[in-house]
């Protein structure tokens, strides 16, 4: 590989999967610089009460030499949409495409590796540029497993799901407590 090669994260799911499995460092094992488009970063870190979001922020701060947040026009649009209460669905991937285009334009020898969620990569024709390679979370974990760098990809995925279940329980407990408090306040006002 002669030119620069970067891994670009196109969606929040690979971040949350490794974040909840406490395995974000696995992302750095190949030694490739990692770009996270701003819209993906914002979407991942605005999730209410998700410890995964805290871990992602801490992980990025621990690896600022390797992991960078890439500003995009899509990210600006995302901010506007958030302010206006509009949907931001799908903007992460658009921001990733913008980040990729800028990166490829910056150096004619540059190559990009786009990281997708498995079911999305399986169905849609993602990119046509010959300088762009693709990988799914599952592909990535399988390579780490084959290299003996993780116990197994299934172990990571099971751990992410188990942690996700714990977080969902906590979220429900918080929303139940909030609902109880609202009801108590309502009853108090109506006495």
């Amino acid at each position, binding site marked *: 590989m002669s030119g620069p090669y970067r891994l670009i994260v196109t969606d929040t799911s690979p971040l949350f999967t490794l974040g909840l499995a406490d395995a974000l460092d696995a992302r750095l*094992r190949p*030694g490739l610089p990692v770009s996270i488009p701003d819209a993906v970063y914002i979407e991942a870190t605005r999730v209410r009460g998700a410890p995964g979001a805290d871990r992602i922020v801490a992980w990025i701060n621990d690896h600022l030499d390797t992991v960078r947040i890439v500003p995009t026009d899509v990210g600006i649009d995302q901010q506007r949409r958030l302010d206006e209460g509009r949907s931001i*669905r*799908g903007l992460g991937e658009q921001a990733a495409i913008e980040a990729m285009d800028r990166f490829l334009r910056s150096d004619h020898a540059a190559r990009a590796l786009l990281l997708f969620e498995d079911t999305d990569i*399986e169905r849609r024709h993602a990119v046509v540029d010959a300088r762009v390679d693709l990988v799914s*979370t599952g*592909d990535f974990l399988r390579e780490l497993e084959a290299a003996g760098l993780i116990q197994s990809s299934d172990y990571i995925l099971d751990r992410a799901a188990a942690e996700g279940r714990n*977080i*969902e329980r906590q979220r429900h407990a918080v929303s139940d407590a909030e609902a109880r408090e609202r009801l108590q306040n309502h009853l108090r006002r109506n006495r």
Partner: protein
Amino acid sequence: MTESEREALVRKYAAGEIAWRELREHGFEDYVEVLGALGALGLRQPVAPMDGPNVAARQRGRVAIREALRSRR
């Protein structure tokens, strides 16, 4: 969406029959919610078979990771 409809969707997702983006369209707000639903059902997220429209680019991606890992040993 009822709880049983939600469960059916998550099972379809785990089986690779529908995509993450379709779960979003059905009201799943974030991927943590998906992982939580999978965990509650004792399932894990699907891993895509080496199939579909992006196979060549995915194979290049896996080779690139393999080589990168090898070069760091």
